[in-house]
């Protein structure tokens, strides 16, 4: 018996090397392209961050080691923008998630035009960021914006508020816009999660006399917790990275009021053409974001095992 089990193993000839190399061959184009367009630039970014490098004086580049990083931690604007990034992520992602959850719970009910409602709710997700940013600039406009008009009519404010020009409100106005842009993503993800919860669990809970709130806490929430965690992590990364909406709405101003860390890097490089320092900020931001990315990768790598 033992012999017959062992035999086939030895009888199978070693797989020809061509077959074993095939998957690598199939992967080569994708890997080569990503190495050239992502990894090489990334390494170049790290190297650039060690130089004093102004774009308009490319020959005057000077190696400064970690000098840019020392300059960065002493730069008060770095700490301001870091704080804004924390507020930016800390408010936007929970707001998107909360609004998305409410939308998903409503759209999960039965009503005749559900399909249409679901399609329409996703629209903000499909719009270009530039269009979203300009649209909201128009809504927030201090003189002719519709938001002020509505608030004035309802007597909620006494005089028109310059939402984006006032340093105290600008950041929150942009956060509201990003919440609007991102909540459909959560709604769609959570809807998919809700549909995965078997109806029988709700029926069992109803028989036990569970109230609507208890049903939500003990059936719905556990059913979508995984989706919330994954979607939440993805969104933290996405929201942290997204600078186009702020850039178009306020350009980071007034002053530094709406500047987040990646936007600071972009503006430094774009307007001051200070590529050395701009890249340093970008690298620092990437390192900080790396903590969140690590969580996400650890979560997803369980998927890959299979």
């Amino acid at each position, binding site marked *: 018996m033992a012999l017959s089990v062992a035999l086939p193993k030895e009888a199978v000839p070693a797989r020809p090397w061509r077959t074993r190399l095939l998957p690598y061959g199939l992967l080569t184009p*994708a890997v080569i392209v990503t190495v050239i367009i*992502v990894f090489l630039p990334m390494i170049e970014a790290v190297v650039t961050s060690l130089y004093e490098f102004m774009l308009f004086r490319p020959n005057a580049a000077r190696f400064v080691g970690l000098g840019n990083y020392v300059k960065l931690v002493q730069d008060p604007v770095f700490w301001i923008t870091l704080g804004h990034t924390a507020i930016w992520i800390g408010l936007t992602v929970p707001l998107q998630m909360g609004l998305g959850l409410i939308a998903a719970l409503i759209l999960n009910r039965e009503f005749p035009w559900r399909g249409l409602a679901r399609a329409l709710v996703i629209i903000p997700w499909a719009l270009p960021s*530039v269009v979203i940013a300009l649209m909201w600039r128009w809504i927030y406009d201090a003189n002719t914006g519709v938001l002020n008009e509505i608030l004035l009519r309802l007597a909620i404010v006494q005089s028109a508020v310059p939402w984006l020009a006032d340093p105290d409100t600008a950041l929150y106005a942009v956060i509201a816009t990003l919440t609007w842009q991102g909540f459909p993503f959560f709604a769609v993800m959570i809807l998919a999660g809700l549909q995965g919860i078997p109806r029988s669990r709700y029926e069992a809970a109803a028989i036990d006399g569970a109230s609507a709130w208890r049903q939500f806490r003990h059936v719905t929430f556990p059913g979508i917790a995984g989706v919330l*965690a*994954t979607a939440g992590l993805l969104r933290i990364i996405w929201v942290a990275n997204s600078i186009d909406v702020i850039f178009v709405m306020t350009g980071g101003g007034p002053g530094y009021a709406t500047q987040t860390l990646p936007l600071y890097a972009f503006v430094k490089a774009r307007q001051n053409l200070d590529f050395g320092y701009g890249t340093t900020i*970008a690298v620092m931001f990437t390192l900080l974001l790396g903590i969140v990315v690590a969580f996400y*990768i650890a979560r997803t790598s369980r998927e890959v095992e299979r």
Partner: protein
Amino acid sequence: MTQKPKLMRRILTVDLPALGIVLLAIGPFVWMLMTSVTPQARLAALGVAVTPVDWSFENYIRLVSRTSFLGNMWHSLVVAAGTMVLGLIVSVTAAYAFSRFRFPGRRLLMLQFLLVNMFPVVLLILPLFVMMRRLGLLDTHAALIIANATVAIPFSVWMLTSYINAIPRSLDEAAMTDGCTRLQALRRVILPLAMPGIVSTGIYIFITAWNEYLYALTLGGRNVRTVTVAIQTLIGEYQIEWGLLSAGGVVGALPATILFLIAQRRLIGGLTQGAVKG
């Protein structure tokens, strides 16, 4: 007897909240739509025209005749289609390898593509700018296609892998028993079956590339100016013509929005699969 109160109750507890969410989602866009059909003079004097009586296509006519918007649409089309083709060609074979083979390094390579997808744009945009300048590619379609591919390739590798995973392995094995090689099985059996997945991945890449702004702004220029950049340049030097700007926004957003609505069912299926399983 009980029918009516029941209906009322449903309207109050389901339809009205749903209407509220829908209005919240499309309200701002509808407002822009109405702004775009309000003639410039009326907009300045009375504000946005809410009733169809006062609507006109004045802003759209000005947009087409006075600006180079149609040319910008063409550039966006070339960039988005180019990104789609490059992204798909490179990713299909990679996705097939991830789906069908178990080989040393598979996990690491898959995670590498996931990681690439998370890289901040702002980290890549500066070295890509320097690279394109060195290669003389600034202000060409190629520059924008390459930059967009940094996002498109990793994304489509993951999407396509999950689509191909859904096709039973027994099909390639049957094809190979019938004398096909691996690559023939991929081309003749898997590709046709994966076509819906490939199409929706392609549409997603197209939409993302069409909507992309920062790369287009940084790596484009006078010759290659995509719609998203062009919309911003509609902002005048002294005052903003909101009517014209809104028309530009509506036209610029239209292709991606329509594609999205057409493909949404399948797209969302593909996008949510990973998250739900996790």
